[in-house]
Structure formats: C-alpha cells, structure tokens
C-alpha cells in the first residue's frame, strides 16, 4: 500500500484518478482502518486529506456554512455558531462513536462510507445539505441524498472526492433534531434513526423534511412523513400520521442489530420524538 498526503484537493483528485489499483480517501479513518484491519479491503493507495487546507475549516457566510471534509466531529461540536444553527446535524455527528472516534471521524467520511445506519446522514438530508464534489475536470454541488446509492456505494465517479458539506442558512423559526436508537447508551451502530428539520409560521409547520436511517438500503428521505406534519401544530393526530408514514416508508431487514418488526415500529417512535424536539427548537428560535 502507498500512503500519500497531498496539500491540495487538486493533487488528491489527481492521485485518486491516476491510481490503477484500489484507491481510498482517508479522512478520519474510523471506517477505513477498520475495513483494512478486518481484511475487507486491501488498498493499493490511501490518500490522506487531513493536510488539505480547504478541507480543514468551517466557514459561515450569508448563504450558509461550509464544512471541510477533514473537519472532525469533535471540532464540529466545539463550533458554537453551528451548534446553534443546526443542533440536529451537530448532535447526529457527535453521536458517532466515542470521544476517541470523535477526535477523528468526519461527516464526509460518514457520508462516503455509505452505511444505511450512518448517524450524520439523515440529519444532513433533513437539513437540505449539499456536498461539494470535486473531480479531475469539474466541481459540482450535489444534494446529500444523491450521494449514497446503496450499502457501501456512492454516486461518486472514480477520482471524485467530496471537499466539503454546505449547510443552508438557517431560516427563522426553524429547528432540527436527530435521534437514534441503540441498545447501549454509547458505542453502537443505530438500530433505527430519524432526522427532522422544520420551519414554523405562527406555530404551524410551514415546511419540513424527514429522513430515516437503518430502515432501508440507504438513508431515506420521506416526503410523505413531512407532509403528515406540514400544516399542523404537531398535535397527536399529526404525530400518529408521522409515525405511520415513517413505518410505511421503511424497508428494513432482520439482522444482528434488530428485526424488521422492531425497526418498523420504533422508527415511528423516534420520528415523533425528534419532531417534538425540532418543533420546540423552532419555536424557541
């Protein structure tokens, strides 16, 4: 295996594009090194992106916040402005693993690892986040929900790399939240998860996005679940409809972490709980 740590995105892209064997991007390494250790992959090239300055910062402008691909979960959690604007996104990212994992893991890594159970992804989808994708000849901005195409699979072409995530500017009277269920209190992969972002007008939900994790081959954006609460004050009837829409949308599997029956049921519970938190936050915002 060859290890490279380029200083610019362009160099990184060139290295990845040129490699004939298997090439991997190393951001936090919290998934990549596990896959190497367990023999799932044997990379010919690993490109460390943590020395690329464009990928190391969090920048907030009038249009939104740009989070570099190499920004760790811990750094994200220390950014008070971002935590205030997008608490659900930050909380979701901070739920990935332990403090040790937080010291390394990144949102972009979480996204590109493309696990259906990725913690940050439903929150990013609910937040209408976009990914800045850089290839050899062009740079494009893609909605986060378009990145993951299946378990471990992404829409990125060979040589393409995500440089940053862009979160839109937070509109007033809006809030987001993310919840996951795990059997322990820490360290587990989500059995089910739900991320919700919504905006209020005079206490009524004007717009909403609902995304679910670990209930299908990819994290799911569920417009029907959003419709169930739009136009309501999140009363009991709306919550019931939200839960039903979430349960209806999921196509989970039975595995070592949970059953179809369990996931289908609990995803509705979590969506309702997350919606209540988001609603509260929007009201306070």
């Amino acid at each position: 295996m060859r290890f490279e740590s380029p200083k610019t995105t362009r160099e990184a892209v060139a290295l990845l594009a040129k490699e004939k064997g298997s090439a991997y991007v190393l951001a936090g390494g919290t998934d990549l090194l596990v896959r190497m250790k367990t023999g799932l992959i044997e990379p010919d090239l690993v490109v460390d992106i943590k020395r690329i300055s464009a990928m190391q910062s969090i920048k907030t402008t009038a249009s939104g916040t740009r989070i570099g691909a190499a920004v760790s979960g811990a750094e994200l959690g220390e950014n008070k402005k971002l935590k205030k604007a997008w608490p659900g996104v930050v909380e979701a990212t901070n739920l990935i693993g332990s403090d040790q994992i937080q010291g390394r893991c990144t949102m972009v890594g979480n996204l590109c690892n493309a696990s259906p159970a990725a913690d940050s992804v439903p929150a990013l989808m609910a937040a209408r986040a976009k990914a800045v994708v850089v290839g050899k000849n062009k740079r494009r901005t893609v909605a986060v929900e378009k990145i993951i195409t299946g378990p471990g699979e992404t829409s990125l072409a060979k040589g393409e790399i995500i440089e940053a995530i862009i979160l839109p500017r937070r509109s007033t009277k809006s809030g987001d939240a993310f919840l996951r269920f795990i059997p322990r209190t820490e360290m587990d992969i989500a059995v089910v998860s739900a991320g919700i972002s919504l905006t209020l007008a005079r206490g009524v939900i004007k717009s909403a996005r609902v995304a679910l994790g670990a209930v299908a081959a990819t994290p799911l954006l569920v417009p029907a679940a959003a419709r169930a609460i739009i136009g309501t004050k999140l009363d009991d009837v709306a919550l019931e409809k939200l839960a039903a829409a979430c349960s209806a949308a999921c196509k989970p599997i039975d595995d070592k972490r949970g059953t179809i029956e369990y996931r289908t049921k609990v995803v509705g519970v979590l969506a309702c709980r997350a919606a209540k938190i988001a609603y509260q936050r929007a009201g306070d915002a």
Partner: protein
Amino acid sequence: MPQDTSYTDQNFKLVGTRPRRPDGVDKVTGRAKFGADATAPGQLVGLILRSPHAHAKIRKIDTSKAEKLAGVKAVVTSADLPDLTDGDRAMLDILENCMARGRALYDGHAVAAVAAINAQTARKALKLIKVDYKVLPHVTDVDEAMKPGAPIVQDWVFTTGVEPKPNKPSNISQRNEFGHGDVEAGFAQADVIVEKSYKTEQTHQGYIEPHACLASVRPDGSGELWVTTQGHFTFRNICSSLLGMDVAKLKVTASEIGGGFGGKTHVWMEPVALALSRKANRPVKVVMSRDEVFRATGPTCSTSIDVKIGVKKNGTITAATAELRYQNGPFPAIWGMLGAMTSFACYDLKNVKSVGYDVLCNRPKVTAYRAPSAPMAAFAVESTMTLVAAEIGMDPVDFRIKNAAKEGTLASYGPTYGPIGIGPTLAAVKNHPHMKAKLGKNQGRGMACGFWFNFGGQTCTDLNIGIDGTVTLTVGTVDVGGSRASLSIIAAEELGIPYDQVQANIADTASLGFNDMTEGSRGTFSSGMATIFAARNAIEVLRERAAQMWDIPVKAVVWENGEARATGKEHGNLPVLSLKEIAAKAPRTGGPIAGHNEVVADNAGVSFASHICDVEVDPETGGTKVIRYTVIQDAGKAIHPDYVEGQFQGGAAQGIGWALNEEYIYGEDGRLQNAGFLDYRIPVCSDLPFIDTEILEIPNPNHPYGVRGVGETSIVPPLAAIGNAVSDAVGVRLNHVPMSPPRILKALDEARGS
C-alpha cells in the same frame, strides 16, 4: 509440621485494611508487561488460518505456496502436532481444538498456522494456504442438536448416564441427575405449581486483552513460553504433554493478565505457537485478533432450561425440579452437570431433582466463565421463584427467607452445608435502604440469589526473608485483580511486620512447585492459606535463630508483633530481637531464613449472594437501563475489601451485560456474525450506575482467617434480578436472555395485544 486449617477468631492489624497494590505503579505507567508485550531475539510473527465453515471435512491442505514465500519460516498443520495422548480422549480433544484434525468443527476452528519474519508476510502466507473443504451439515442450537436426526457433531460420542446404554452416537454427551426425596409426592402436596421454560444465549468472558504468547523451543527439546494465562503450571503440563516435551524442560512464565474470567484457564493457540517455534527453530509470538478471540476461544454455554416448583400457600416449597440443557461446543464437557448441581443450591428442599444434559454443537469449545453454568440455572430458578411468590401473594424476599438453606441443610447436589451465608444475605436485603427507595414511572425492582461452590486445590508458596528483613513472598497463582496486595497483607499480618516490608511476586514454573490455576475463586483463598503456613514456618526458623543468638532453648522464644521475645524467669529480661535484627545475622546463624508450604487447600467454603436491582424500561422502544444496583455477598473474611468489592462489582456488571445485550449471534450458515466489541455489546461506562456493595463475613470454618472465595458468585444473580425488575417495571416476564430491546418490545406488544 501439622497444618491447622481451622478458623480461629482473632483481632487483625492489617487484614481488612486497604493498602495500595504493589503492582499499581507499573500498571498506571504502562510498564506492566502483558501477554503481547514481550519480545525475544529473532522472534517471528505467528498467525493462524481458521475455518470459515461451521462444520466441514478437510480433504486437503496445500501449504506449498505459503512455504515458498520469502520470509516464511514455518507452516504447521495437525500433521505437525501428532497425537501423543495415548488414548486420553480429553487431551486429544484439547489438541484437536487447537488445530483441526481432518474436520473443522466450528466457524473459527484453527486449520493451519504460519510463522514469518513480520506480520505482512505472515498475512500474505495465510492467503496462500489452500484448504479443500467439504461442507457438512451443522447444528448450533442446543434444542435442535438434541432432536433425533440432528447433524451429529462427533460420531464417537454416545450418551452416558442413561439406561439402556445407547448404540447410536448422539450430540448428548451425558445426562446427570441430582437431588433427593420424592418430587412426585412433593408436587402432589402443592397448592400451587409453576412450570416455566427459559433460554439463555451464549456469552463470552470478554476480557480486554486478547490471548497472546511468545513461544521458544530449542533444538535440544527444551523451551520457554511467555503467556497470558490464569494458570501457567497447568499450561506447562498440558503443552509439554501435547508437544512431547519433558515437564521440567518447558518453562512457562505468566505475563500480567489482562482479564480472564475463566477464558484463560484453557490452552488455545499456545501449543500451536510452540509447534511453530519448534519447526522454525526461532521464537514465535502469536497474538490473537479480537475476531479470533470471539470465534475461537472461551465462550460459555447457551442453554435451554425447564423449571417446575410446587408450593403450599404458606410459602413452603414442596417439590422442585429442573431439566437443564447446556450447549458445550464440539467436545464433551461437564457444564450441564454443573448447572444441574447449582440450580437449587440456595434452598432447603425436601424433594428436589435436577437433570443436566451436556450437548454438542458446532460452536467454539466452551470453557469456564465466572461461576460457570450457575448464572443460567439461577436465571431460570430465580425467575420462577419470584413468579411462585407472586402466585401465592408472598413477598419474594420473605418467600426466599422461608425456604433458604442453612447450616445442616442437605444441599440439592449432595453435601450437607456448614455455616453459610444465604440467610444472612437475604436478611440484609430485607433491611437494605435500596428495598425501600421510591420508584418512578416505568421503573421496577427485582432481586435474586446466587450460589457458587468455590475451589481450593493445589498450592505452593515460598516466603524468603532478605538480609535487611524485607520479605519476598513468591506465589504460583496468577494475580488477576489485586491478589498480590491481599497476599502481602496476609504475610505481613502473620509475621507482625508492616505491609510495605513484603513484596509479593508470581513465580514462573521453574521457580516454584505446582499450583492450580487462578480459578474457582481460589487465588486469595488457597495462596492465602499457603502464605499463612509458609509464614508460620518462617517464624519457626526465626525463633530458632533468635534462640541461637541468645543461646537459650527454642521453646523459651515466642514470636509477637514481628519480634522474638524470650520468656521465662531466667530469660525474661533479654531485649527483644526484631525480624530485621535476626535477618541481619542470618549468614552466621545458619544461612537464609525461609518458610515454604505446599497444601491442597480443600473445603473452600461455598458462597452465596443476593442482589437488588432497579431498572427503567422505555415501553415504546424496549430499551432498558439499570438505574440502581446492590450486591450483598458473604466473603467469609475480606482481606483487602477494595478488591472484594471490585469482584462484586465486576461480576454484577458482567451479569448485567449478559442479561440485557450480550449474545453470540449465528447466521443460518453457522458463522458468528458479531465477533467484535461493536456488536457483541458489553456494558460501557455510561450504561451502568454505581454498584453498591455490602460485604458479609460469615467465617469459612476451614480457613485460618475464615476466607471464602469471592470472585465468581457475583455474576450468578444479575440475570434473574434484572428479569424480575423488568417484570416489575412493565409487567412482562422475559424468559429469554439477553432481554434485548427487540425481545422486550415484542413481549410488551404481545401483552398489549398489538
């Protein structure tokens, strides 16, 4: 000199205090050397190739390509570990478990191994070994394995303990029955009978340190083994026997051990490491990955158990029976028998019968896990006990107190009890403030009792007094959790000197006589006993030397407070001689001063505990959290209370993990799906509350200080205590451990009718 093991009441100066452990500094500075921390000149890296199949015939192993790879120094298969066991089937089973012999018996079974100059080369070599498997039908569930027509795991196993003698092989290796009285007559007298079935899943000891060893065999047939183990003397005997080495020519050194809980009582890859070293003629280090630890070492049994208890309305149990089916992995063992023995040990029963079955499956070879076999039996019996109490409208603690075993009780497994602690622990539960604390919404409280035999065994200890009067205590029982501190306390107590004047060490197999392993809660019990006797022997020498220095008869010298004192009218005015003064003169009064002892420390003293547990259950997700936990256990005598409490807390935490989340998950293909700490979910720090402890001291009549083993019993009650608490919290009875969120939610949904 005769060794009086009987208990004598005395006022201790040091026993019961909490000094700092002698190995503490090394362990907080990173200097302590564990299994993987040793190196030897020219050492190679050893790796093991493991079967991906649950059951397969090995038609051929082609190692030629691996052998040709540059940097590979040895490749071994079962051909390099010939059968030298001379008809000893149990030893052959151990050998076969270390390296498959023509058949892979479980996912993870070793089939070949390599030694190479570095890890990269060794990994490459493993991939070059071609194994031609013919996959065979497998069975991993204990109940399935007992059914007629189940795939037969071992065709040479015929059920023992049944009449008539079977003529067909079976996965049931043995049936054992215990009890007394007439259970049918007893059930006929009952007002209420409760009958219930339970299942528990397989769990792993989960020690944080993977197995590791450094083997070095010389061309002259002698060798050394550095290894993380609970018993280096036993490892020496087994390895030398399997490899055809002389016992005296294999020196085994126990590294610091990063947890064992029974899992390091057994050899796994050590004989393979020795075989690799012998073939390569270089030292070979083998360190298991976590995946290997889960797939191929030490889990405890999965079980399936039926319990039936009959009771009169006044709370008297008239009869109790249990059938216990324990999954042992692919080799015959005694775990079901132990389960049957422990199941009703807490109670004084007129009519009782327990039947244990030992069953083979295509899972890893089971080894001891802390009070092995008892937690599952206790889950079944103690859950049923609480159900019975509810049926007759009696408080579950009162019900247990009414039926508790006491001194003179004929135990369900045979012996008659001496003074025991089950009654006192139950009385302490009754009076504990925990029982009166208020519970919130979705919270519930449960309690349960537990029993463990404890073990004594062979022990050998040296005590040497240095020229400056400091004392080297040399024991052969591995220190798994602070025993060096406890044994130093005992030596200092006996000699009458300060704790700091004693230095405890663990000897290698070349430096001390045979010691049984640190298992069965015997470390402090048995080495403590041998330390007492070794110190008393040393005191005899000290008295002789003092007599010589004074030129008076030995019988006029007494030993008090670390000093020799002359007694009698004619000598009483002599100034006392301290241990230091006598030690300084040793070269001129007869040479080194030492005490030695070897003993079979029998009658370890049975152990009982009662636990109280509060849980909170989320009725919408089935998520359960333990919010308060109390352990009450009889220690006989707590030598170093910190480390006694530590055993209580650690065992309870393991039981909590087992109760709620830990389990081996096998796929249809017979492969283990969660061979890692990510999905084999042991409790993390944020999962647990503080674990309160109460140490009771009901002296063991067969130990000079009254010590009983304390290490294991604490894992026995938690499964049932939590099951009873969950039932109290949300009204559903879980009969399947672990009580994971999907299982709890399913039970809740069934109860709600949705």
